């Protein structure tokens, strides 16, 4: 059910649903802020095993940034009437999303290989938990992409205001989890 929102009296130029999503993103950010401060406080207390981030974390950064680009390109194609490009790029984005999850798991394996398991030392524990919580949010994004993909292939191609909005919402969320990953990796790298 949609609430008809007339432009004349909305306070912002942002559509209410987009605004709502941004508010939700702020909320999610707070959880990671909490993790970050817990990390910093614990690190300061000593008994902290230093180690370098697994290389796959950096590879994954490229993967997720690329997926943001492909999704954005898909969105532009959608608006411009290029149905095939729109659908194709959407597929690629979804595949990259899956790839991210798989590679994250393998990055964890890299950590285990150098002796950093979940319970070895808090420094490792935090990395597992934080990257895991992020991966859970990526999973949510993948679910949204899946739905977008199903719509792309099942519905007749048509650029309506409703569909554009849904795409924009998916796009905002995906960019958000992308940005979140970059923050997390920067944080880990700078802190160690």
């Amino acid at each position, binding site marked *: 059910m949609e609430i008809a929102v007339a432009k004349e009296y909305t306070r912002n130029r942002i559509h209410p649903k987009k605004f709502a999503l941004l508010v939700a993103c702020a909320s999610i950010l*707070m959880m990671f802020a909490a993790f970050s401060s817990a990390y910093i*406080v614990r690190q300061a207390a000593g008994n902290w095993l230093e180690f370098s981030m697994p290389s796959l974390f950096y590879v994954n950064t490229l993967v997720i940034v690329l997926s943001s680009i492909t999704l954005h390109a898909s969105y532009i194609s959608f608006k411009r009437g290029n149905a095939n490009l729109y659908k194709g790029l959407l597929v690629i984005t979804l595949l990259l999303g899956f790839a991210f999850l798989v590679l994250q798991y393998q990055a964890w394996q890299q950590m285990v290989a150098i002796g950093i398991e979940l319970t070895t030392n808090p420094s490792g524990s935090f990395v597992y938990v934080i990257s895991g919580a992020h991966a859970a949010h990526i999973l949510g994004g993948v679910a949204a992409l899946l739905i977008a993909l199903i719509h792309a292939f099942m519905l007749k191609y048509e650029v309506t205001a409703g569909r554009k909005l849904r795409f924009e919402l998916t796009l905002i969320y995906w960019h958000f989890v992308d940005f979140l990953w970059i923050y997390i990796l920067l944080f880990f790298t700078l802190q160690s």
Partner: protein
Amino acid sequence: MANIATQSQPEVLREDMLIEELGFDDHFHDHHHGDKYQSNFINTYVFSQDHKVIAKQFLITGMFWAVVGALMSLVFRLQLGFPEESIAWLKPVLGKWVEINAEGFGTLSQDFYYALVTMHGTILVFFVLTAGLSGTFSNLLIPLQLGARDMASPFLNMLSYWFFFLAGAIMFASLFISTGPFSGGWVAYPPLSALPQASQGSGAGMTLWTLSLVFFVVSVLLGGINYITTVLNLRTKGMSLWRMPLTIWAFFITAIIGLLSFPVLVSAFLLLMFDRGMGTSFFLSDIYIGGQALDHVGGSPILFQHLFWFLGHPEVYIIILPAMGLVSEVLSVHSRKPIFGYKAMVYSIMAIAFLSFIVWAHHMFMSGVNPFISNFFVIFTLIIAVPSAVKVFNWIATLYKGNIRLNAASLFAIGFVSMFISGGLTGIFLGNSALDIQLHDTYFVVAHFHIVMGVAAFFGMFAGIYNWFPKMYGRFMNDTLGKIHFWGTLVGAYAIFWPMHYLGMAGVPRRYFSFDSFQAFAHFDGMNQFITIGAILTFAFQVIFIVNFFYSIWKGKKMTTRNPWGATTLEWTTPIERIHGNWPDKLPTVQRWAYDYGKDGKEFISQVEPLGPDEKEVH
């Protein structure tokens, strides 16, 4: 002479004309004529996406949990007030949690005592005073008072209620499992909460408790997102921020606080779950228990406390601010006077909200935190007393030279202020760390938070229910019964919680199953009996309220005019029989602030009334 204002027919017609001529036409009903939105029972009453129905769902669920939480407190008060009396008679209800000895004497199992205390706190703080209070009134009033058709996302709103329901169902289930419900205090400090060996309730009960609360947080966040978006995006034409009623300011700022603080609780719980089940050491170190030295090394229980209280403290403001908003509105309407110092009240809410984020460690003065850090928390904690005091003075000034209609709603609002004064002042003792050395974890703390939360916030809720019941159901609750409810509860609540200050000042610790082990704490049998009897009697008065509430839904006196209180705010311009979309045709356009009571000799001036030729707007 003020009474239940029978808004006269001409006034009603004038309002309708103003809305027709000056209102905003969003063609809402063109889009929603015969839509699937409310086509069957399930859509209309169960998975409703109408904010008014959702508000009632929150209210009734909240009331259910209030009864459960209160009954729990009666059981553990029986233990504290009458430890020599057998409670074997409760065995049919409590089963194995009542231990019967050879002579047939029944005592409450100690584990279960602590489970009751834990559940009482959890249920009342989260399910009743957060969901039941904010959930009900934010949902009911935000669209109605802002001139919106519904919330920004009715679908998310519906989900918000059902996540709350789910959280409740899980918590309810946890009461019946064999190892018992969680019993480590509503604050769930590790290592106690992390180790099933430390307490029965820290087994499966704790897992369910945490799961329930995670779903609860989802519910709060979904609701909060909606409230914020609706306030910022869906106000009707002319409704600038400074024309919003104080209720909306309160709900809006509360939602922001919730959005920023609840996720931190989730992070604390996630880390705790890892410590519990995956062997990590975020919060655990150097533990020998159950005949074993555990592997966890390097963690700090104090870290959990920081993360918990980062939510925990703003949480109590999430509880009290909406109650304050409701009280401001009720006092103003029934005094036929503007709320005194509207802008000061708004700024106070903002100041309280901001400060609430930097005082959390006043719950941790005696936790082993570096004493130097506590200095800052003392400073900010005592500063937060200032905007709180300002609000009290403004409420009192609202009554001054008013023309007060003393009905159930306004009496509860007055009672709120009395309770907030009493409970707020003891906060000043506790916020001063030097005094907290003595008072921490004693009954003085229990007195303080019960009076501000357990009573004041409840009074705000009652004031809101009595005042807006007509808007919810088109009928009135019986006011005489409401007044009886008020006086019984006011006297009863003070009877229960005031003596607890004395227990605290005598050094009696909280969360004690029995005081028999200590000479120092054993002098207070009479007082404990008095408190328990007070609790039973006060609960009896709540039965009056519950009966009144449900009876009035179907048999209460019907509303004959749509604005019985003679209020200025927009919700009273909607028809008596609630409709989807709130207004039958156009949306009202707002021309002035919400508090023109008694201006220019008029009892009240609706917000839709344009300013007169020489009239100046107050703000």
